[in-house]
């Protein structure tokens, strides 16, 4: 796709965390309204809609149900279903839609009441059984909670590269520290490496604080044409590059669990943007588990293979580090409402580039890599976003 063929012009979030007074659809409406207001647009300006499936609601044809609830009759609509990569993929799909003229202004919106609508235990049991990322015949009978499938990745990474639980724990510590600066984050109390190591063991080597939260929440992003973007008041955030990577559908059917198809998604995104990892000012990386971030840092080219743990341990992903990661606190601390939550990484990247980061605004950031990871580290979609300075 052509560089800068579409731009993000608005972002919005519902309240995230424990929000028992809002249904999934109300969370979606809250996020959509805020994103349109942020863009200086209204629902009447929207002629494209993208969303993701909802585990809590189990809607048939989710894009149609959401469009109907929001009073939209879009000329382009689709449900994007690549699990945790859906958040980044929606942005790429929206950009393709406006670049081809299918529509001019796309509302990408996703969210659900995962915590209040299902309960924490209910959500965990549901993710392990109904529509699970575990193969129904060859994996589910073994009894893996979703963290067990990522624990297989972590255990192998530790074996091949000497990655330690302390290094993984540092990821959780940084995410919590960042969330402390985010008034909309689910968990803001600081934690230490010792807290992560001593947390109840879920599935070795992953303890409770190595795992993403279970939260309520929705996010929305408005994507439009270059012409419209330039005529709005806010600073456009340009889609400079995008790439996909498909490694495997099932964790037991992968060649390697430690080198992922994020290598391919990242390479295509960098090529599209005509830049390299050293040009990236900060990153929003899908952090469903602490190990995921370490694997992504390596496969997206921010450090050599096997050195992701050391990169984190040396402060590389901290706000003051050479590659600040997830200034909002990520899935580990800002919030995780299931598949829809990948959109929060896009929202944070756009806000930072637009200087809308509030207390957590990073200095001198114009180019970001945003990465979504789905399945058991098998499905990847990377985006490179940039402000005017990056064009």
């Amino acid at each position, binding site marked *: 796709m052509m560089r800068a063929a579409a731009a993000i012009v608005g972002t919005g979030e519902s309240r995230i965390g424990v929000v028992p007074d809002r249904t999934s659809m109300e969370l979606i409406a809250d996020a959509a309204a805020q994103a349109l207001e942020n863009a200086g647009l209204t629902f009447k300006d929207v002629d494209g809609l993208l969303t993701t499936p909802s585990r809590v609601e189990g809607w048939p044809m989710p894009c149609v149900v959401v469009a109907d609830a929001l009073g939209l009759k879009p000329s382009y609509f689709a449900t994007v279903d690549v699990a945790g990569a859906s958040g980044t993929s929606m942005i790429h799909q929206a950009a393709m839609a406006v670049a081809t003229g299918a529509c001019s202004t796309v509302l990408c919106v996703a969210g659900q009441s995962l915590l209040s609508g299902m309960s924490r235990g209910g959500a965990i049991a549901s993710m392990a*059984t109904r529509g699970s990322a575990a193969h129904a015949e060859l994996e589910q009978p073994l009894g893996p909670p979703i963290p067990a499938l990522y624990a297989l990745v972590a255990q192998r990474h530790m074996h091949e590269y000497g990655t330690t639980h302390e290094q993984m724990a540092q990821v959780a510590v940084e995410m919590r520290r960042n969330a402390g600066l985010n008034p909309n984050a689910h968990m803001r109390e600081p934690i230490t490496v010792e807290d992560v190591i001593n947390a109840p*063991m879920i599935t*070795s080597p992953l303890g409770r604080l190595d795992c993403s939260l279970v939260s309520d929440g929705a996010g929305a992003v408005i994507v439009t044409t270059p012409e419209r973007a330039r005529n709005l008041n806010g600073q456009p955030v340009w889609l400079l590059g995008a790439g996909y990577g498909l490694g495997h559908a099932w964790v037991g059917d992968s060649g390697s669990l430690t080198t992922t198809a994020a290598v391919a998604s990242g390479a295509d995104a960098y090529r599209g943007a005509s830049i390299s990892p050293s040009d990236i000012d900060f990153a929003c990386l899908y952090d469903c588990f602490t190990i995921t971030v370490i694997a992504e840092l390596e496969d997206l080219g921010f450090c050599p293979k096997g050195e992701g743990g050391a990169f984190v341990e040396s402060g590389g992903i901290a706000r003051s580090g050479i590659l600040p990661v997830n200034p909002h606190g990520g899935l580990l601390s800002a919030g995780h409402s299931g598949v829809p939550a990948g959109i929060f990484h896009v929202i944070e990247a756009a806000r930072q580039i637009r200087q809308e980061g509030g207390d957590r605004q990073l200095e001198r950031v114009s180019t970001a890599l945003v990465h979504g990871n789905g399945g058991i580290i098998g499905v990847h979609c990377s985006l490179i976003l940039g402000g005017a300075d990056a064009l």
Partner: protein
Amino acid sequence: MTVANQNVFPTMRRCTACGSLRFYPKPLCPACHDAKSEAAQVNGQGELYSFTVVHRAPTRELKAEAPYIIALVDLDEGVRVTGRLIMPEGRTPRCGDRVRLVAGGQSFAIFESIDREII
């Protein structure tokens, strides 16, 4: 003891065109896309690719079984399979351990370590 028959791995197939083994059910060979395949038997010995000890089972039914070990095993025939792993009390597995099939459960294979240090 080796319990190796197709009742343990009923989905194991060999591509009749290129000879590749596949454990996950697929209509086409992942290596050559040929549609023809035949049931295949494996010896049941291999190397532990990765594992996790599940302490917090995801459902009420599974809680009584915890802790249990989920394993990925690279069989000597060159195909990766899933199963449970049993270990002597107090011993923890390591990636790379030699393992062998000891039983086919109702719906999954069960492996044990044949690491000499452990036995």
